[in-house]
């Protein structure tokens, strides 16, 4: 069976609710033009980027598009040097990275699932590689993550962390991204092919000035992700 052990419990619980309400219909409703923008005083483009030394945390189901979200945050740095992807599951496909515009020789994959060596490997990568994407295996201590976050800030290396279980501890990530819903366009009942993915992301952290916000990103698989709209803040109560 497909190992779904990396699925956070909370996200998994929400899955049933999405099925009941019909995710496609909900996304279409949410994406209606008249509902797109709620001004919270923070520019969307500023939110959806990662400056040197900043850390982004990703949480959500495999399949929700977070790997591409994380890679797209780091893609601008690959013009200056390689991006290292710490692959705990051994599943990452460089094809997706190449589609985002990362040169093959600038995408280095490091495979390790051992939590003892994991911290050492991330620390070493932060010292020398231009950008780091790290999946976090089960059992890594919060203290280790905080130490690595401090190192990333000191070395001014952008870091994307993807826990395979749960979320990052509070205060580690400058930008915390959680996948809420995902919908695909292009496939019918046996016709067409996957074309465009629209993902609703709940974004929080210092990047959003402490407010939780919802962003919709569109991904056609062949270019950078495009932020379609900044949908609103949690406090606006505009959407149920």
């Amino acid at each position, binding site marked *: *069976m497909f190992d779904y052990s990396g699925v956070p419990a909370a996200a998994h619980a929400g899955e049933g609710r999405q099925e009941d309400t019909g995710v496609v219909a909900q996304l279409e409703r949410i994406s209606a033009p008249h509902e797109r923008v709620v001004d919270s005083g923070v520019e969307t483009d500023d939110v959806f980027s990662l400056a040197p030394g900043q850390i982004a945390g990703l949480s959500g189901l495999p399949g929700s598009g977070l790997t591409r979200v994380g890679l797209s945050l780091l893609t601008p740095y690959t013009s200056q040097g390689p991006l290292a992807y710490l692959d705990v599951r051994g599943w990452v496909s460089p094809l997706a990275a190449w589609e985002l515009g990362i040169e093959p020789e600038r995408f280095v994959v490091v495979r390790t699932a051992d939590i003892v060596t994991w911290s050492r490997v991330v620390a070493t990568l932060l010292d020398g590689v*231009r950008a780091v994407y790290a999946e976090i295996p089960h059992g890594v201590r919060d203290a280790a993550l905080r130490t690595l976050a401090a190192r990333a800030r000191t070395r001014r290396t952008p870091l994307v962390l993807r826990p395979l279980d749960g979320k990052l501890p509070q205060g580690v990530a400058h930008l915390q991204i959680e996948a809420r819903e995902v919908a695909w366009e292009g496939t019918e009942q046996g016709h067409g092919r996957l074309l465009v993915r629209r993902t609703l992301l709940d974004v929080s952290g210092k990047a959003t000035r402490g407010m939780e916000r919802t962003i919709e990103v569109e991904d056609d698989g062949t270019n950078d992700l495009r932020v379609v709209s900044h949908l609103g803040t949690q406090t606006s109560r505009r959407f149920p």
Partner: protein
Amino acid sequence: MWYPTWALRRPGVSHDAPQQAVDDRNTVVALNSHAAASGITIGMQRRAAEALCPTIVTIERDQTADMARFEYVVERIESVVPRVEIADPGLVFIPIAGAVAYYGGEQALIERIDKELDAFGGDYRFGLAAGPFAAWQAVRSTSDESPLFIVSDDTAFLSSLDITAIGSDDLAATFRWLGITTLGALAELPHDAVISRFGRQGLNAHRIARGMGNEAHPRDIPQDCAVEALFDPPIEDFDQASFIARNLSQRLINQLAPHGIAPHRVVVTAIAADGTERVRTWWSADPFDDHTLTDRVRWQLRAWIDGVSVGIRGGIASLRLEPDDLSGSGRQLALEEDVKAVDETRRALMEVQAIAGADNVLIAVPQGGRDSGQQMLWSRWGDEPTTTARDIHAPWPGRIPSPAPTLVPPDPIPFTVSWVDGTPEQVRLRSRWVPVLSWAGPWRSVGRWWVGEGSSDRYQIVTSAGAYLCEVRNGSTYLIGVYD
């Protein structure tokens, strides 16, 4: 001295049938007389060669093993003339200026070397000239019937050679288009005009054509730029030695890079645990970069550690690389790279290799294929990327269209899908059934039936949790990709 068929000399291989050796690009690099009689030539593609001679025996070149065997030959030559320089397994440059006087003439020297190698057999040939480029061209002019070519005047000899001898096909084509068809015609061009029109590449070609070699002598050469590593306990394992070879080679090239120089000649010195010192000099017409130098050092270490020669007793206690004959054509950095950042990255990735294992630090190159897993070719970071045998530009019918799945399991994983009348209705994720919202496919892969591969159908299945790429084979469904 050159063994044109060295790559074919393998134990247990019969030489009575047509044979060819191909490199990792499937280009013919060596062939015997039977193969040549069929019309096959060096540089031909393997497929074309096999079309000309369907019974030909094809050997894939293994330069590490070739060098391990060639070490014995080098030792025999060094018993006559010291300090020879190896360019490739099968090709060695012998500095004969002193030896000619010692043995009483060129012919006597050749006979002495010939006597040493006679027991070893093979179709070795000699080219004698004042410079390495002319000597190489001379030995290429030899044949089975006339295995010795002595050049009395390098300039006169080179002037008659075709312009393609400069080694760069593009530059040779340009010269030919300008009406310059021989090295002699190139040598007659004004030096300054060649530099201003063709830059460093043209300068090197002009120097070669005039019999001056392509070495340049930059002003700021560091005093002591050798690199050395000591090992306690000594290294006896070839894998360990390979890792050290890359480390030292990169250190040497990086050390020279800020000066804008790179070596044409590197002296590799190893000291064994019992104190024995082994020295070999490697030479290259083009300046070494870290990849080419790593290969040479690895070949040499393999020859010493695992070869048939005396080798290294008790393991390697010390390894030293010393550059010589430096060239000004060092590595050109990319626009946004800086030397410090490149060094830091290399150091970090090598350290990660030491922590996680060299096999776990990987890089991939694109190649052709129908499934995502087939469309990338992995190799260890720092190794020369493996050359793909799958044509990326071929149509690959049945290929899954983009976007590519972000996560691809190394092997297909059983995936429970509820099919109703050929339509996927639900998929099982962990312990829950999730309805299929939409799906596309199938994309049929017929497989290589002649090697027993069956056909399969691939489907893109979309659920509220995400999209998956599945494969249906022999009535079972497997997960082969996740669009994450």
